[in-house]
């Protein structure tokens, strides 16, 4: 029985890690190209989650909700990028501060529309995998497996896109040398907006999927963003691969800590972060110099 419980916790960890990857990958994608520490990312997460919840309620179709939530978050992202961030481009601090302001406004408007109390999105009513996966004595919610599956697919697509597509090449060129890329005739402004939208889209997907597992409050995005930040700090800012490793690591640590030392569960995410910061300040896979 002990072994089964360990496997169960490992799967819990992987599922949470998958959610973390969805949040962290969008964040790190934006950071990698634009050097913006986008704290509004948690806001995009809740926009996706609430739009997804409303869509499931109205259409009883989870897949539609996933698309609607993702597009809504991307839409808000584009508005923020074009309307606000473009005005403070290349000014490191003002960019971050603007995203803090955006997070305030989004969170508050969500409270205004939906109230501050917890809501639930039941993926089963919308045709998402539900019930339990049963192998002998072993049971695990199918939705968790689904979350892991979706995330792996998204991760692989992101990797292939970045590595082999023309768009990926342009983005990598922008990451390496923004000015040179612009000089080569790449419309870097468009690339920025596109990447920002993609990052926000990923946050929206994370929101809808996350709302299917955890209770949804207007502050859910900010909470998961903490884990997302730790993931990217451990993995290395701007690195998708680092985000994947960091997410799995943190997901597993969190799951086992919650099971065996629940009182200290926050110390356990804190310890690896400080350790990495001392030994390797740029993160496990980070290329950017931090100082």
């Amino acid at each position, binding site marked *: 029985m002990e072994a089964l419980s360990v496997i169960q916790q490992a799967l819990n960890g992987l599922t949470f890690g998958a959610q973390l990857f969805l949040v962290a990958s969008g964040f790190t994608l934006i950071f990698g190209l634009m050097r913006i520490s986008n704290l509004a990312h948690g806001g995009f997460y809740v926009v996706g989650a609430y739009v997804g919840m409303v869509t499931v309620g109205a259409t009883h179709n989870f897949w539609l909700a996933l698309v609607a939530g993702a597009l809504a978050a991307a839409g808000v992202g584009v508005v923020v990028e074009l309307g*606000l961030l473009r005005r403070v481009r290349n000014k490191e601090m*003002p960019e971050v501060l603007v995203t803090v302001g*955006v997070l*305030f406004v989004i969170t508050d408007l969500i409270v205004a529309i939906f109230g501050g109390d917890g809501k639930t999105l039941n993926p089963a009513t919308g045709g998402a995998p539900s019930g339990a996966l049963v192998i002998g004595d072993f049971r695990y919610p199918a939705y968790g497996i689904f979350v892991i599956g979706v995330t792996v697919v998204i991760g692989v697509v992101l990797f292939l896109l970045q590595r082999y597509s023309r768009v990926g090449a342009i983005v990598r060129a922008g990451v390496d040398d923004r000015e040179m890329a612009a000089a080569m005739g790449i419309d870097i402004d468009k690339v920025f907006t596109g990447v920002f939208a993609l990052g926000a889209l990923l946050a929206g997907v994370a929101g809808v999927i996350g709302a299917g597992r955890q209770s949804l409050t207007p502050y859910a995005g900010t909470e998961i963003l903490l884990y997302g*930040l730790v993931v990217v700090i451990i993995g290395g800012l701007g690195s998708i691969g680092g985000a994947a490793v960091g997410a799995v690591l943190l997901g597993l640590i969190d799951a086992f800590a919650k099971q065996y030392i629940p009182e200290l569960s926050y110390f356990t995410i*804190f310890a690896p972060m400080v350790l990495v910061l001392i030994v390797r300040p740029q993160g496990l896979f980070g290329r950017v110099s931090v100082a």
Partner: protein
Amino acid sequence: MSVAPASPRITRPAVVKAVVALAVIAFAFALPYVVSEYYVGVATLVLVSAILAASINLLAGDGGLVSLGHAGISMAAGYGIAWSVKEELPFGVQLLVSLGVTLVVSAVFGLATMRMRGVFYLMITVALGMICWGIAQKWSVVTGGDNGLSRNWPPEAIRPYWTYYFVVLAIFLLATLALWVISRSPFGLVLRGIRDSESRMRSLGYRIASYKFAAMMLSGLFAGLAGVLMVWRTGFINPKSGDFIASALPLIMVVLGGLGTALGPLVGAVIVVLISQVLSSYVDRWQTVLGLLFIASVILAPRGLVGGVRSLAARVGGRIGGRRPPAPETPATTE
């Protein structure tokens, strides 16, 4: 036609500054005799928030190190008091426990951030602040969890609301003076040097990391002071006093008021507290108002209210004075 100031030592801006400062202090001392208990409470909150904002201003204004996790430190100091009260420790020990917790948490912040700058610094402080919040929530044996700890009052003598206001006012003035001295000391000068060009300061032989660590410890002491005063104000503390919003508000105050100015934290605290305490009784969506105001300020008035007023005054003064050269905008920085 106006005449240039007779004495070269007492410049007009200095006189204006002194008059403004004296007027503000006089107003602050007169306040409890004029307004109701509720507004004295609001004013106390303004002053306590301004101390926390000023602690960020020390790092961000002089050192260019923007912390978005300072509520984690002030909350830890507050829990130091609250836990000691729960354990029925004597008053002096309560203060020592709180000081100890503040130093430990500040040291952790300092060690984790001393090799960082810019957005990296900011992001790590966000993460640290939220970890403090998470620990406060989960470690319920010590912190009381979400319910928090209540009845943490200051000593009987300073408990009445107006006495407490005067105590906080005195501490605020002392803290502001201390920060002003620090900012103008050789230490503050080195911090500004690091802000303007880290590589230059390093090649001049300064140990950048040590200075950043020391700056965080100093700033943490003021944040801890604010945390203790915050707990005594209401007698209550819960994890909300260290959540992301609690860390963002003092930074918003500093930026709204004017980064790196002595008066900025107070001006920002007045604006933010008025919006969050007074406007909120008329408008439910005060956070939206604050967020929009903040975004507008960052985009349109990057130097905050005090900075904006100062440059406006310089421009107007230059026009009226005629012969007086306009005050320099910002010292020219060359890389």
